[in-house]
């Protein structure tokens, strides 16, 4: 087994000039060891900034490019042209660039349309698991590289937080996949439900965490909420609680290869935002340098992709449609056993991203 000394630190790419202005000193100083690109977020044939394809090409050539999908809709119980087209686009993308791995988000997209929505949590049933495994197999077959999923920030209740890790393990295990542990998502869960961060982290399959995401977020103080809700908006500073916990997290993730720092492009409004972005990056760098970890490469297993027709579960699909509709209406439905404040936040997110 190949031994890798330390995880590589990089950033999530946003094709936005303000983001680039903030990140350029890091690139110029050769500090960005890896980049992650959400290849499915470019809508149609919209003009790209000239630097983007050059950047992808150079990181790709050195096997330092990670793909991170947003719109595959991993747990959607229906199957149609949207997923087919998404996979075709992924195939093309992986022919164009050499991605070291491809990942997606855990959850159900709040919209049935491509390029809209946000990942919604929903009941972690066996039928949902079968859907997820089928979708991951197709993802792996199309990408022809290691595939994985990221934990979700928005969680309806305490039980769903602590069940998510086991469900994710069952999802990725059949494809020998990996987990992206998003520490700010864990921070959101911790703050919103009063559970210790490390308790949540240890509920995930730590042995499969190949990548960590770190970002900031914001507090939602909407008067309609009964308490302040932490949201994964990727626009603020990285909370100190995450940085303080990072050495301990690094020490328990044996196959951790990548750490990706994320910040939303629109959040770079002033010069200080770029300065803070670089300062947070350097804090992570310092912690990583100070850590005495030595990680191992993820073990390869022979996986046979026997793909039959896509799994479709119409009963589950109707349940998913009903959940979307109910959240869109804004009217709380107690039958879903969601925390009321989280439900209200989901309604707000629906209005923001389903347009």
């Amino acid at each position, binding site marked *: 087994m190949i031994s890798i000394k330390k995880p590589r630190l990089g950033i999530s790419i946003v*094709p936005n000039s303000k983001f680039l202005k903030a990140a350029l000193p890091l690139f*110029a100083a050769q500090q960005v060891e890896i980049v992650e690109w959400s290849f499915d977020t470019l809508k149609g044939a919209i*003009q790209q900034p*000239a630097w983007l394809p050059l*950047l992808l090409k*150079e990181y790709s050539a050195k096997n330092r490019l990670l793909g991170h999908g947003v719109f595959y809709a991993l747990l959607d119980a229906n199957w149609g042209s949207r997923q087919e087209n998404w996979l075709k686009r992924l195939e093309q993308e992986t022919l164009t660039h050499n991605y070291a791995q491809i990942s997606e988000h855990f959850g159900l997209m709040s919209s049935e349309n491509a390029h809209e929505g946000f*990942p919604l949590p929903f009941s972690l049933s066996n039928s949902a698991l079968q859907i997820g495994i089928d979708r991951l197999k197709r993802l792996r077959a199309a990408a022809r590289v290691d595939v994985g999923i990221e934990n*979700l920030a*928005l969680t309806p209740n305490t039980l769903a937080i602590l069940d998510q890790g086991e469900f994710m393990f069952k999802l990725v295990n059949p494809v020998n996949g990996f987990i992206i542990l998003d520490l700010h998502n864990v921070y959101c869960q911790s703050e919103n439900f009063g559970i210790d961060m490390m308790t949540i982290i240890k509920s995930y399959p730590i042995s499969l965490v190949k990548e960590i995401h770190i970002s900031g977020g914001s507090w939602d103080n909407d008067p309609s909420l009964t308490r302040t809700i932490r949201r994964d908006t990727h626009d603020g500073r990285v909370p100190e609680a995450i940085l303080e916990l990072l050495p301990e997290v690094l020490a328990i993730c044996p196959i951790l290869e990548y750490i990706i720092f994320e910040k*939303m492009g629109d959040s770079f409004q002033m010069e200080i935002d770029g300065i803070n972005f670089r300062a947070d990056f350097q804090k992570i760098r310092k912690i990583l340098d100070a850590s005495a970890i030595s990680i191992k490469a993820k073990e390869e297993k022979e996986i046979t992709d026997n793909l039959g027709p896509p799994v479709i579960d119409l009963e589950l699909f109707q349940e998913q449609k009903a959940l979307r509709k109910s959240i869109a209406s804004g009217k709380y439905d107690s039958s879903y056993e969601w925390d009321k404040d989280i439900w209200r936040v989901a309604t707000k997110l629906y209005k923001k991203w389903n347009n």
Partner: protein
Amino acid sequence: MKLSNVLLASMITSVLGVSAQEDDTEKDSLTSQFSTEIELPKASSTINLIDDQKNIKDSIKIRSSKKKVYKAIKTTPTNKYQHRCPGCGRG
């Protein structure tokens, strides 16, 4: 990871473009930092071209004018580009 000069030049050009759009007069520390470290032949030749076209006698004055220099080397129409869907941060 070390990037090629071509990529860095493309990035710097894009950054300078947005700087010019944001603020034509304020001194930009990032711009100053990189303008001394990385040679930008395309940008320089463009500036020279602008000098010739306008037949401005005092070239030193042109080069000290951030507004004119930045507009001359802006090649990426960033306002036409829309990245509608950020990768994450939807929670």
